[in-house]
């Protein structure tokens, strides 16, 4: 009798505990309660996400984290940056360790469906390339037969590389590395002939070299790599917030809203699209549980898409990437924010 009562109590307690663990609130509520956005970023890729000399994270992906934090919490500095490797990033999202992953991650079918992630747009249209030392005398990826190639494990580039060399009936030896820093070290030591990753990543890596002029990025781009922010599957409202924050930054550039003229436009703009974006007419923010000025704060955080691009990876920076595919659709690029209405 006593025993069965005891057993029953234990069983009931266990059941309750189990259910308690599985309960999850909405991500928006969690972030607001925490007062801080957990943002998964690269462990260190100059231009995209890297801590500066003072330990402050800066970069293209970091700017998106700050914009979301500004939209949701009203303060772009309330972000906790969680460095993730190619191997740990998706687990960090699905386990809830980060609310948002902005880490040069390629949007693919299986990641969107099978890995239970939701990609909320594309913030950089990229493709995989190869970097080699000039001394090697190689001018095309087709000449890399038999080469030793450094590659980050757990990335789409690993699969593209295998496909590309098979398609061209070439051999190669992969050297698997865990982070960009390790790849850089191996490449510099000559332990691999070529380093392959997204072309933007190559440019960023090369910019950090002591002798960037001695390394070339081969002309072949062997894949499509649409890089974008990802959130956990199942919380659609949170996904909407991230998606539309990115869209707001893109739209702001299209409408000519910059961090400099935004205050003036809030007061004087007569363009209804801009008014809706900046929250002076209609109540778009309330539709996803934010206030009216969410987009204004997001743009103020580090500027619109064009400003962020120019400040972190644009042609004026050491990384020196051209807008290319990442220009507005009106300029022949692929950036196209759906209408705010």
């Amino acid at each position, binding site marked *: 009798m006593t025993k069965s009562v005891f057993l029953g109590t234990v069983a009931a307690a266990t059941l309750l505990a189990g259910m308690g663990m599985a309960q999850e609130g909405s991500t928006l509520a969690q972030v607001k309660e925490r007062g801080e956005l957990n943002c998964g970023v690269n462990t260190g890729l100059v231009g995209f996400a890297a801590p500066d000399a003072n330990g402050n994270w800066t970069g293209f992906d970091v700017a998106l984290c700050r914009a979301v934090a500004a939209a949701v919490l009203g303060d772009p500095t309330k972000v906790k940056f969680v460095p993730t490797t190619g191997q740990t990033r*998706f687990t960090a999202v699905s386990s809830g360790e980060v609310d948002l992953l902005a880490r040069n991650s390629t949007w693919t079918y299986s990641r969107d469906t099978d890995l239970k992630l939701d990609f909320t747009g594309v913030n950089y249209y990229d493709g995989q390339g190869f970097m080699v030392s000039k001394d090697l005398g190689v001018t095309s990826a087709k000449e890399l037969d038999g080469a030793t190639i450094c590659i980050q494990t757990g990335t789409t580039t690993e699969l593209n590389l295998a496909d590309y060399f098979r398609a061209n009936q070439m051999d190669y030896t992969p050297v698997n590395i865990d982070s960009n820093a390790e790849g850089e070290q191996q490449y510099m030591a000559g332990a691999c002939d070529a380093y392959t990753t997204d072309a933007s990543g190559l440019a960023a890596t090369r910019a950090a070299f002591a002798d960037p002029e001695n390394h070339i990025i081969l002309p072949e781009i062997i894949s499509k790599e649409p890089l974008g922010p990802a959130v956990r599957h199942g919380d659609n409202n949170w996904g909407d917030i991230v998606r539309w924050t990115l869209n707001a930054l893109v739209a702001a550039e299209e409408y000519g809203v910059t961090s400099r003229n935004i205050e003036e436009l809030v007061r004087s703009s007569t363009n209804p699209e801009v008014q809706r974006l900046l929250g002076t007419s209609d109540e778009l923010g309330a539709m996803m549980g934010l206030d009216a000025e969410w987009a204004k704060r997001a743009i103020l955080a580090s500027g619109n898409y064009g400003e962020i691009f120019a400040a972190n990876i644009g042609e004026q920076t050491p990384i020196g990437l051209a807008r290319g595919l990442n220009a507005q659709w009106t300029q022949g690029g692929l950036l196209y924010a759906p209408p705010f209405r």
Partner: protein
Amino acid sequence: MTDVSASTDTSFRPSMLIYDRRYRSLTFQVIVFILVMAAMWWLISNTITNLASMGKTFDFGFLFQRAGYDISQTLIPYSADDTHFRAAVVGLLNTLLVAILGCIAATILGIAVGVARLSKNWLFGRLMTVYVEIFRNIPLLLWILIIYAVFTEIMPAPNAYRGDDPAWSMILFDNVALTNRYTSIPTLGMTNDPGSLDLGARITFNWATIAFVVVLIGGWIARGMIAKNAQKVQNRTGFRPTTWWKSLLVMTVPSLFLIWFFGLHLIAPALKGFNFTGGINVSNSLVALWLALTLYTAAFIAEIVRAGILAVSRGQSEAAFALGLRPKRTMNLVILPQALRVIIPPLISQYLNLTKNSSLAIAVGYMDLRGTLGGTTLNQTGRELEAIVLMMLTYLMLSLLISAAMNVFNSRVKLKER
């Protein structure tokens, strides 16, 4: 039972579960059992609920999908078109390779250092002490990284061997090239290739390899029989016949014959394109991992060996000397058999440690089980739970197998007490 009331009152009361010595231990065992079961049940049900809330299933189907990635070191044929399962097997074989190489080298080095530490030569003994203390007190991961870094930073790129007046040249009669990626060693060629035995699943064994294995095992057995026979003669007549040349003959002549028969010769690697081809490129990640595991584990084994030898009381060797046994015989016949009894059980743990420690391979990009199944496969398929569970089971099986094999060996060498 001196307590009268306890012996007369036989009815059972619940308080007796705690206060009566007859039931107390049973009560606590039942409680602990229930708690352990409840904890396990909680963990499992929690996992199931959380998987369901994330919309994930528990399914091993991914193992039979196309892997799509390449592996740098494969002991069986593998291409990106093979399944994740085959990739996991390739990884497991790489784990086994470094574990076996490591265990052998660590044992040899460990015994040598352990004995040397007891040396009467003061300097030699202290040097060994320094080695043991340095290696066993610095984390293994650091050793792996340091040794790997030494290889990549000090060795030249293959390019340094190019040209008419290269900066580096191959060593050992132009047979071996050291580079910052791999050590290129010659491969064996045969003028009279007997073909291969096909085991299915694209796993093949060359008949020549099988012939060599058979001949070596046969030679070993023959050597044992010769020794046994010599023992018999010694027991009967008191004189041990000379056996060393007989043993040497049965161990080497058949192999030499096979070498001649198959026309075995070395094919030296040559620099072609970006890399050395034609030979076997032993990657630096394997060598660094092997060296680090060996040096680290050997330090522990040395201590085990030293302890084992010291555990044999001095009276044993004194008694042996009194009987007129020479030092070498004393060691082989008196000290070692008794020392092994102490050495083997902790040695098993060291082998298990080495095998499990090999999973640090990912630090230098050596694609072992952790790198394939627990690394790339896990990442590309997103099956964290399945991959980790499978990996845990594999390491568990591997450890239990090593442990079982060593226990059999242990029961053979342990002191037979009658």
